[in-house]
């Protein structure tokens, strides 16, 4: 009884701000109010045709993909070494590679701002990509490391004994084993980058502005239902990516390694 009431209250607390956004996205009014006086698609249509939102959306998708791919190229070899190496200092190196997780992104953001202006580059896509790759690298490393630690090293040894060179055994044996970790890590990495505000706020320029920054700028200047509409579109996109992955590949099949019989 008490438990049921608690879950209902907690659910209301968690879902209310999200639900309110989804409802206001369909308002017919020209101002933000809840409940809404009526429903229409005017704000959704307006936002979909507005380059002030659509360009940042494209930038965010591109940046998220680029950060996920960069993180994979850095994290997969590192995870292999950490899982198999058994060398002195492995724990310290792992802690170092995971350390960006515990740093407030704002500090990284200011630091990158000074750093890139010292290098004479200023804000821009490279700065954004470096910042986001630093932030998502630990997520990628952790998921790949978890899979690599659970994998059976005998499989690679078998490939080696059968005469495969290291590169071929990596490509045909190790990589398929690590795939669930890489896919899960890339998904996390994309979602984290897609949502990141602090680095994006200081490092993006007008032409490389990401979606969260565009939304934040819009709220600061005009408080209107366009925010709700673009937010709803963003939520739908994230859910669509997850559903597409689930239908296409099966998320649990991608993320959980096949169990050995």
């Amino acid at each position, binding site marked *: 009884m008490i438990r049921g009431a608690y879950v209902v209250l907690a659910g209301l607390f968690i879902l209310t*701000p999200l639900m*309110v956004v989804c409802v206001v996205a369909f308002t017919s009014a020209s101002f933000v109010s809840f409940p809404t006086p009526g429903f229409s698609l005017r704000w959704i249509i307006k936002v979909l045709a507005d380059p002030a939102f659509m360009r940042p959306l494209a930038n965010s998708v591109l940046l998220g993909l680029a950060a996920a791919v960069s993180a994979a190229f*850095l994290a997969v070899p590192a995870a292999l070494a950490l899982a*198999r190496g058994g060398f002195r200092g492995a724990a310290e190196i792992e802690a170092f590679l995971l*350390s960006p997780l515990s740093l407030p992104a704002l500090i990284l953001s200011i630091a990158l701002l000074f750093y890139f202006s010292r290098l004479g580059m200023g804000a821009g896509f490279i700065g954004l990509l470096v910042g986001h790759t630093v932030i998502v690298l630990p997520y990628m490393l952790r998921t790949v490391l978890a899979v690599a630690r659970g994998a059976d090293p005998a499989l690679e040894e078998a490939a080696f004994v059968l005469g495969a060179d290291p590169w071929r055994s990596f490509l045909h044996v190790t990589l398929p084993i690590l795939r669930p970790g890489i896919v899960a890590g890339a998904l996390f990495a994309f979602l984290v980058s897609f949502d990141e505000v602090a680095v994006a706020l200081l490092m993006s320029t007008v032409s490389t502005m990401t979606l969260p920054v565009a939304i934040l700028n819009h709220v600061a200047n005009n408080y209107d239902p366009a925010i709700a509409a673009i937010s709803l579109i963003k939520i739908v996109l994230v859910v669509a990516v997850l559903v597409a992955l689930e239908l296409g590949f099966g998320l649990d099949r991608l993320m959980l390694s096949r169990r050995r019989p």
Partner: protein
Amino acid sequence: MRRSTVALLLAPAILFLLFGFLAPIAVGLGESLRAGLGLYGKIFGDSYYLEVIASTLALSAVVTLISLAIGYPYALILARARGWRKAALLLLLVAPLLVNVVVRSFGWMVVFGRSGLINAVLAAVGLPAIDMLNSWTAIVIALVHVLMPFMVLSIAATLEALDPALEEAAATLGARPLRTFVHVVVPLSLHGAVTGSILVFALCMGSFVTVMMMGGNSTMVLPLLIYQQLTVAGDQAFAAALGMVLLATVVAVFWLQGRLVRSMRS
């Protein structure tokens, strides 16, 4: 695996973090020290900046305690649930994580705003409207909403690992459910509660978008002050010095966690 192979595999990630993470922070530290320790003297010698640091710590402490109070029962129910109930509770908990902080803050603005949900409810029962936006309460509620899932997941992880046989043993030996809970379940899940609290506290210390959107300019916290120094005042060196103070605070919090967890294990 040979030494040289290990080095070759680790090199890209280590070099990337050296040049993309440590070097920028070193440059930031250098920027803040350009005029010696003067900027730090300005921060610690001025009551305004000390008040901002104190209010940042106070806000983080309150948000952490409320997240713990609301999150602990959720973690307990989540850890005990089975089958579809567990999946549903987990989905409910992590669904907001897929929604941007900016969007969630906007949602709370609609809830608290003049023509928002709360005032609609108040009007329906005949009560006068209140303006909750730009208040400390609004900031705390929105921050708890953002950070509570991290608390719940940390606690649930330790509760999951708890052997149900321990509780059964306590019950068999005649302990009432409440006694079992206080003397068996709570001490064994303390580890998760400490980890979750430190995580929420540290994340809260660094949040500024939620504070900026919910609080207007009513509440000043360290990260927001840093952001304003950069964008409004344009004082880069001072922003760097404030950033280093924030960094030192967060590092101290994590150091404290390490000590607490180690002393709990022994």
